[in-house]
């Protein structure tokens, strides 16, 4: 029997006795009968618990929805019966293993409490969740999650690539002096350090330091990206299953609104505001359902026309910004060709123009998009949010793809020095300027808006924290970091510092300038969407760019660990050729040549996966039909149950002593105010006495069923 049945038993005591003795007498039961029944259920529960292992037993007792006293009672009974059983088999080994498992359990508990104590920002996040609700909190948890990705990347890169390089080149210092501008432009002093690809050299040939920098560089970055991909797919799938498949997708569902009341909200004003918002939302959803959606054809054509226009305008804006950025990139390249002395400060500062323009477009055009969406009329506010997110993602990804195209096509051929370091510097500048623009965005979007909203134009009011824009900003910055890992291995450090500072900045701005969001709910589904956006197009795009660079592009000749090779991947091929000589690793060489290098293998793999997907899709279709059939079955069984109970009651009333029959009219059923066409309900309606304390339908049914089962068991025992 499963844990579910145990839990049902656990609810017996709580479900029955609150009805009171009066209710029980009406159905012909005494309190003793009820208590006997409860005792026997408890004994069955104890018997089941004794058969489980100690860990499962503890977990099962913890899962029981009873008060502490009852749980202690059951636990003592279980321990007593276990020790009495053990009295027969007192072996030393059983005792020892029991002690070991007990101490292991204590260790595990101690570890988990220690882990909870050192969790970063635990108190702050609880405070934010208490004041602003779970949807705003999801932004900060997302930020924390990205911080973890970057920390792992930095540690891995630093440990396996940077430290060996620093050990190798200790004693050599760059010949350019440090000016403060490097922190922003990333060029100059940083150019020849381990910050960028160019600072790494494969030293296996000329020194006796046997560290193959080529393989280390390639495999560290590959392993990190694979780890990222796996964890993103895992989180995405788990979140999708929890929030989309198992959840109810109908919009404005009343239950979902009621059940999403945030119990952790502590602020009095926030609670009042939340109640207001909930009322408004409930009224809106009611009016939505009652409204008829029959618009005339001309109206619908007009709506369609407006939608089409706005889409064309937004695509045009994105295309325009991409073209502007592309021309600016070409101009930058030409400047490099023309420039005579590479150390000129003015020229280095002019390289900041490109990131500035990119971030400006990323800040301004989404504002234009939200203005456009006000012109359109969306029936469903959720749909509106999806459209805004889609447009913003499209804009950001198209800007990134034009930059990647420029780097891959033009930079590799036209830059005289290390083109990888040049790309790394570009990315560094983009990340830093993006950070400054986040600060500005916070300042203008929240601080100034609050000032305007409270002092100058009170009709606008205090701004809400715009979760979508901020999360998309985070995703964009993370995409830049993932692209930049190959070209600048220490870029995750910059991103880490940036995220750390951004957390505190956003927290301060939130507390001072924003109010809790008006629309509640759907935080979980938006979370899934953000994780999905982080995977595709962000991670997949970065991965494909790095893969293309590694597979197809020629590394520059004058710098970096891969100088002299035709492609970066050639380092692995050469290594495989070297290991082919050693006979112990022939299996590795076989795997490499027959699985990784052959196309037939991947083709077959893809074919097998397609067949499996089709198979699982058919299974889901079958399960959907099964759910419909089971729901119908539940309705039918409810009807059968009501019919049988009515029969049972009539038989019991006939067999009861006349004293009881006088005082009892017979159980009154609830008058069915719920309008369904159930043809059995009329037969069951009697004269309703609303003032009388009627026994609850469900629990009296349960008692009847239990009594019937006890009688049946007693009859069985007699045979």
């Amino acid at each position, binding site marked *: 029997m499963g844990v579910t049945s145990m839990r049902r038993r656990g609810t017996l005591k709580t479900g029955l006795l609150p009805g009171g003795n009066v209710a029980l007498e009406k159905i012909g039961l005494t309190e003793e009968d009820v208590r006997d029944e409860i005792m026997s259920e408890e004994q069955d529960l104890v018997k089941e618990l004794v058969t489980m292992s100690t860990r499962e037993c503890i977990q099962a007792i913890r899962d029981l929805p009873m008060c*502490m006293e009852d749980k202690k009672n059951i636990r003592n009974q279980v321990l007593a019966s276990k020790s009495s059983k053990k009295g027969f088999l007192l072996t030393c080994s059983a005792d020892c293993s029991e002690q070991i498992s007990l101490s292991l359990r204590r260790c595990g508990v101690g570890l988990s*409490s220690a882990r909870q104590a050192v969790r970063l920002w635990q108190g702050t996040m609880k405070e934010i969740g208490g004041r602003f609700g779970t949807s705003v909190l999801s932004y900060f948890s997302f930020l924390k999650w990205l911080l973890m990705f970057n920390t792992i990347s930095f540690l891995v890169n630093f440990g396996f690539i940077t430290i060996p390089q620093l050990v190798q080149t200790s004693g050599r210092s760059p010949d350019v002096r440090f000016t403060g501008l490097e922190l922003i432009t990333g060029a100059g002093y940083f150019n020849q350090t381990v910050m960028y690809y160019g600072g790494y050299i494969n030293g296996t040939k000329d020194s006796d330091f046997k560290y193959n920098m080529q393989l280390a560089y390639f495999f560290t970055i590959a392993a990190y990206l694979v780890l990222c991909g796996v964890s993103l797919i895992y989180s995405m799938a788990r979140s999708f299953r929890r929030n989309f498949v198992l959840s109810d997708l109908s919009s404005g569902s009343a239950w979902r609104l009621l059940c999403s009341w945030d119990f*952790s*909200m502590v602020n*009095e004003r926030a609670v009042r505001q939340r109640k207001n918002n909930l009322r408004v939302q409930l009224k809106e959803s009611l009016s939505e359902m009652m409204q008829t959606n029959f618009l005339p054809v001309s109206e619908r054509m007009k709506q369609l026309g407006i939608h089409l226009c706005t889409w064309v305008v937004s695509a045009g804006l994105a295309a325009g910004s991409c073209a502007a950025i592309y021309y600016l990139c070409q101009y930058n390249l030409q400047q490099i060709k023309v420039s005579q002395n590479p150390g000129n400060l003015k020229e280095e500062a002019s390289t900041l123009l490109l990131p500035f323009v990119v971030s400006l477009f990323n800040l301004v055009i989404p504002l234009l998009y939200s203005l456009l969406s006000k012109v359109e009329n969306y029936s469903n506010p959720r749909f509106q949010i999806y459209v805004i997110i889609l447009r913003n993602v499209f804009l950001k990804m198209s800007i990134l793809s034009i930059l990647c195209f420029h780097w891959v096509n033009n930079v590799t051929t036209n830059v005289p020095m290390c083109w990888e370091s040049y790309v790394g510097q570009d990315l560094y500048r983009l990340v830093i300027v993006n950070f400054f623009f986040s600060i500005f965005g916070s300042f203008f979007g929240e601080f100034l808006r609050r000032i305007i909203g409270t002092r100058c134009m009170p009709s606008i009011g205090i701004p809400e924290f715009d979760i979508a824009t901020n999360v998309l900003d985070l995703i964009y910055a993370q995409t830049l970091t993932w692209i930049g890992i190959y070209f600048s291995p220490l870029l995750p450090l910059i991103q880490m510092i940036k995220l750390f500072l951004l957390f505190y900045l956003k927290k301060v701005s939130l507390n001072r300038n924003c109010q809790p969001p008006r629309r509640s709910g759907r*935080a979980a589904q938006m979370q899934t969407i953000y994780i999905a956006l982080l995977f595709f197009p962000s991670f997949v795009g970065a991965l494909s760019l790095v893969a293309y660079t590694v597979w197809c592009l020629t590394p520059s000749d004058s710098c970096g660990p891969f100088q002299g090779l035709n492609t970066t991947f050639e380092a692995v091929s050469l290594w495989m050729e070297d290991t082919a000589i050693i006979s112990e690793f022939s299996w590795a060489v076989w795997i490499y040549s027959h699985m990784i290098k052959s196309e037939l293998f991947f083709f077959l793999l893809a074919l097998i996966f397609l067949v499996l997907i089709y198979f699982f899709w058919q299974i889901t279709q079958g399960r959907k039909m099964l759910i419909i059939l089971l729901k119908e079955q539940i309705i039918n069984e409810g009807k059968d149950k009501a019919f049988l109970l009515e029969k049972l009651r009539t038989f019991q009333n006939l067999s009861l002593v006349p004293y009881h029959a006088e005082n009892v009219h017979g159980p009154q059923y609830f008058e069915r105010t*719920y309008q369904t066409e159930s043809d059995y309900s009329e037969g069951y309606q009697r004269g309703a006495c609303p003032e009388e304390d009627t026994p609850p339908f469900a629990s009296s049914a349960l008692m009847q069923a239990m009594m019937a089962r006890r009688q049946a068991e007693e009859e069985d025992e007699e045979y």
Partner: protein
Amino acid sequence: MGTSASQLPKDLLSEYQELTFLTKQEILLAHKRFTELLAKDDRSCSNPRLPMSRILTLPELKSNPFKERICLVFSTSDNKDGSLTFEDFLDLLSAFSDSATSDIKSHYAFRIFDFDDDGTLDRKDLERLVNCLTGDTDETRLTSDEMKQLINNILEESDIDKDGTVNLSEFQHVISRSPDFVSSFKIVL
């Protein structure tokens, strides 16, 4: 806080850790907050009981619209006055903690929403639930038409066996389809 009664004995602490979803720090913090709320002379009692009025002064419960129902549901006192012993308090925190299972949370949520304690959520219970969450004064209440329509919608969605009430299994089924429930049914000290 210098008396020895304010310290939890170790065996009780490990027993509480086994029986609830709380960690050791959370149990100690709960003990500290509980003894702070006790009146001075109650502290030396063997199993002191906090009256409901004192529990409702906790900042985590003060603005909660279900504060009285929560105290009544978790109270084990015989006269149903909502007073809590320390073990009841731990039960409360355990059900509302981060690591409690969705089944426990939905079970207790059902009992909290069941205003008349009859084991099912009928129309009156649902009406009181909506009023609790939207405000109880005359200008903030929903009109009776809107309320009727809303409750019809709720019952249509969740009443699977069509008996006009929502019982525990139907409630748990609805909860399992609302992914926001588990993360919002939380109270942390």
